[in-house]
């Protein structure tokens, strides 16, 4: 069954400084029951706004949203169900744990609102606390707890009523990296126990990849690509997605007689497959870890610079006059200035729009 459906959802804001902004543009999506779905994108791309429309905190400018087959926001028919009647669980970036209530009262709040009887409240709250490893802390106040524990309170509060849908708005971004990884795992475990449908909003691609069944990448209010994490990483639809998921190299390439040369230097061909329909000028995209650096096979060049990292070594090499980044395990040792050869294991072709990639990022408006 389709648990969450968005049809042509558009959201426009009017601000004093920037005028009218389309935060979300013609957004359509269907999420299956029990699916964990991530919204990924840079800040200001509209992912949080979309989530807040699903939760009912924002009006739609156009379009409709259905939850569990029931219309909750339909602009044309003037349907709007307030957040408290949507039956969702939600975790916010800043935890939003109430400082004037202890752990038990925080988690029990949604049950108390439903005017449930005391013994049920106690029983269900204890279950939620147990699942989030908070048992024993019932009477403690949030200010005495760590960030990780506060986030678990928020999580326990969101799941205590066993809602069908769980909305997570960058719930891990205020935690330190180690804690983030373990919380990621805990959320996944909880999903298995409760079979939630989850929308997970994040700007951290590894979080999205680790948690989701499917995900989408957004930019400036538009959906760029919807896919499984694996496909998203291996076949990004354009250079924006390529760059957003993991590290990227882009080489400006000239195609001549079915062969690829780095732009501005036709002395040596780049060994890779060229499509028949390729335009005379293209972008070749390759990830730093998808280049085999060796002594004999492939494009001949030399090491310009070497940086030793913890798990890998990073080399900077030149293809024509364009700098390329290569990341390999430590056993592949080269010295600075040493000749080497490059094999492109997995590369993709994009049309060259002529835009400088760094300049493009700076242009992006931040809402």
């Amino acid at each position, binding site marked *: 069954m389709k648990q969450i459906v968005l049809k042509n959802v558009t959201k426009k804001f009017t601000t004093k400084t920037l005028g009218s902004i389309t935060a979300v543009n013609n957004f359509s999506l269907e999420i299956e029951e029990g699916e964990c779905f991530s919204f990924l994108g840079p800040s200001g791309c509209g992912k949080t706004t979309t989530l807040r429309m699903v939760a009912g905190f924002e009006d739609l400018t156009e379009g409709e949203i259905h939850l569990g087959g029931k219309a909750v926001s339909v602009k044309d028919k003037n349907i709007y169900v307030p957040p408290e009647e949507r*039956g969702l669980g939600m975790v*916010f970036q800043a935890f939003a744990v*109430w400082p*004037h209530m202890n752990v038990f009262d925080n988690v029990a*709040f949604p049950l108390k*609102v439903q005017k449930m009887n005391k013994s049920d409240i106690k029983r269900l709250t204890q279950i939620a606390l147990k699942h989030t490893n908070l048992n024993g802390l019932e009477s403690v106040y949030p*200010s005495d707890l760590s960030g990780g524990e506060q986030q678990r309170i928020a999580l326990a509060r969101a799941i205590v009523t066993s809602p069908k849908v769980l909305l997570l708005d960058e719930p891990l971004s205020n935690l330190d990296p180690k804690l983030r990884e373990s919380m990621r795992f805990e959320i996944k475990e909880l999903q298995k126990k409760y079979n939630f449908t989850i929308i997970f909003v994040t700007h951290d691609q590894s979080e999205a990849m680790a948690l989701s069944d499917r995900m989408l990448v957004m930019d400036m209010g538009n959906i760029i690509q919807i896919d499984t994490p694996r496909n998203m990483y291996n076949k990004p639809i354009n250079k924006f997605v390529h760059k957003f998921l993991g590290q990227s190299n882009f080489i400006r390439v000239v195609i001549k007689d079915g062969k690829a040369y780095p732009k501005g230097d036709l002395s040596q061909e780049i060994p890779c497959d060229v499509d028949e329909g390729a335009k005379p000028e293209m972008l070749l995209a390759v990830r730093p870890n998808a280049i085999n650096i060796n002594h004999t096979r492939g494009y001949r060049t030399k090491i310009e610079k070497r940086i030793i990292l913890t798990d890998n070594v990073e080399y900077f090499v030149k293809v024509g006059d364009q700098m390329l980044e290569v990341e390999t395990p430590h056993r592949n040792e080269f010295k600075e200035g040493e000749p080497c050869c490059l094999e492109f294991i997995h590369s993709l072709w994009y049309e060259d729009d002529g835009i400088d990639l760094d300049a493009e990022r700076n242009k992006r408006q931040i809402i």
Partner: protein
Amino acid sequence: MRIGIRNKDLARQDGKRVRLDGMLTMLSFIILFIVVIIPLFMIIYNAFFYEGNLDVQLFINVIFSGDNLGAIKNTVIIALCVTVFGTIMGIFYAWLLGRSDIPLKGLMRGLFTIPYMFPPFFGAMAWDLLLSGRGGYLNNWLMQTFNLAEAPININSVWGIVFVEVSYYFPFVFMQVVSALERMDPTLEESARISGAKQGYVIRKITLPLVLPAISAGALLILISSLSHFGVPSILGFSQNIYTLPTKIYQLINRAAGDFQGVREGAALSVLLIFIVGTALILQRAVLRSGSYDIIRGKSMRPMLIKLRGAKQPLLIFAFLSLIVIVLVPLVMIFLVGLLKAYGLPLIPANFTLKNYTNILFNNKMVSDAIGNSLFLSVSAGIIAMFLGVMIAYVIIKIKPKGKEVLEVISILPYSIPGTVLAIGVILAWSGAIAKINLYNTIWIILIAYIARYLSFSMKSASASLQQVHYSLEDAARSCGASHMESLKDITLPLIRPAMVSGFFLIFLPAMRELTTSVLLYGPYTRTLGVAIYSLRSDGYITQASALASVAILLIIICNTIVTQITKDRKGV
């Protein structure tokens, strides 16, 4: 602790630092002793001792006299009512502007800053003109229109005093609560909504408890201000023999006319007033210590505004009408009466003249003296208290000597002492009692009182700024070879210059319109602007008093505009 040790190590290496640090510390203690401790001591001493002998009888007699018991009762009743109504009003407007989608918020905020600018006794004067039981303008009109035998509303009553004070003091709660609401993380409320709670439930269970510390802080500020307030009850209450403790003290001193017994009675009442205000202060400390919650967190999201829907129009009209009545009507009234040929004439253009203005500005020695005095007092008190405040703040924040807590408490103390009480202390101390120094009836006695009264303003502003200046900045200058004095002059002082400028204006502006203290200290030639208006009015020159008040209003507006401009320019510093 570690910093203290470090300082001592440094001190051992550099003799100069010890001398400068020690000197500043000593100087701070001495000045505070002279300005704050001596007057307070003199009050208590004179209340309980007579010619060197313990004399409790006077104190007991004064407190249990029927008159004074009435004044105590009035003081407490008025302060409590003002606190309750002012708090309710403050919360209502804070919620309206902070959380609802009511339009014209900017304009309403602008109106809210007006009560801050003007002394409440202007408002009392205006309301007395409108609603005086003996025939204010509005009362007369109501009596004519509805054929009433007597004035329907009498502002010269306890309730009138409460009304005028509320209209000046409710911004204390409003400002506190609206800023708490605006800084509050909106997801705290949103997470309650998503948990299934309705709007009203969220307000009761989440929003109100979270802003409760802000509400109580503002409410206690109202309570303390109202307990020690002089202007409004003196203007509205005297004619009906309604006294509060500050006005009773004023009356005792005034009637005594130099008679020592009267001053002693005033001192005894002052001790009582200090006791009442002190109780409120202890309450305030307890509330503030229980702490506010950490409700500011996360990325800034616009809070979801509550849609007023059908209630929007009525609430908007109500809010504007009440603001206009509270804020604009008194100002307009003062301007209009200032234009009248004679008090009591109908307020129509035919009766208007500029003669009152020319009279007071050009033909009245008392008024021009008063304007000069007020300017002199405000500028000199501003400059002196500003530098003293910086010095004391430097001692407390940077030098951290033993007993810095004492220093801090003493410097903030005069702010909490009612102006009336401070004035009596200054009279008792500097009318020849100490080293035969007699400053009574001179402008210097007012200056001393102003310095004591406003010292804490600049002290607070300077210490907030000094806290931002890290030790390493001065240490870096020292390591470049600068002496302690040079590092202070070239590094620290320039860095806190914006705080010094704002510290000056924090003193200059209230000193310009001060009444409570100077009304007890002025001599024949040392009237201040506030006193001049007050005495013109009590001598029956109501149109001239109104004209002078209008001039004062213009002066205050001009000064405020200049200050806003200056602080705006300084923002980047």
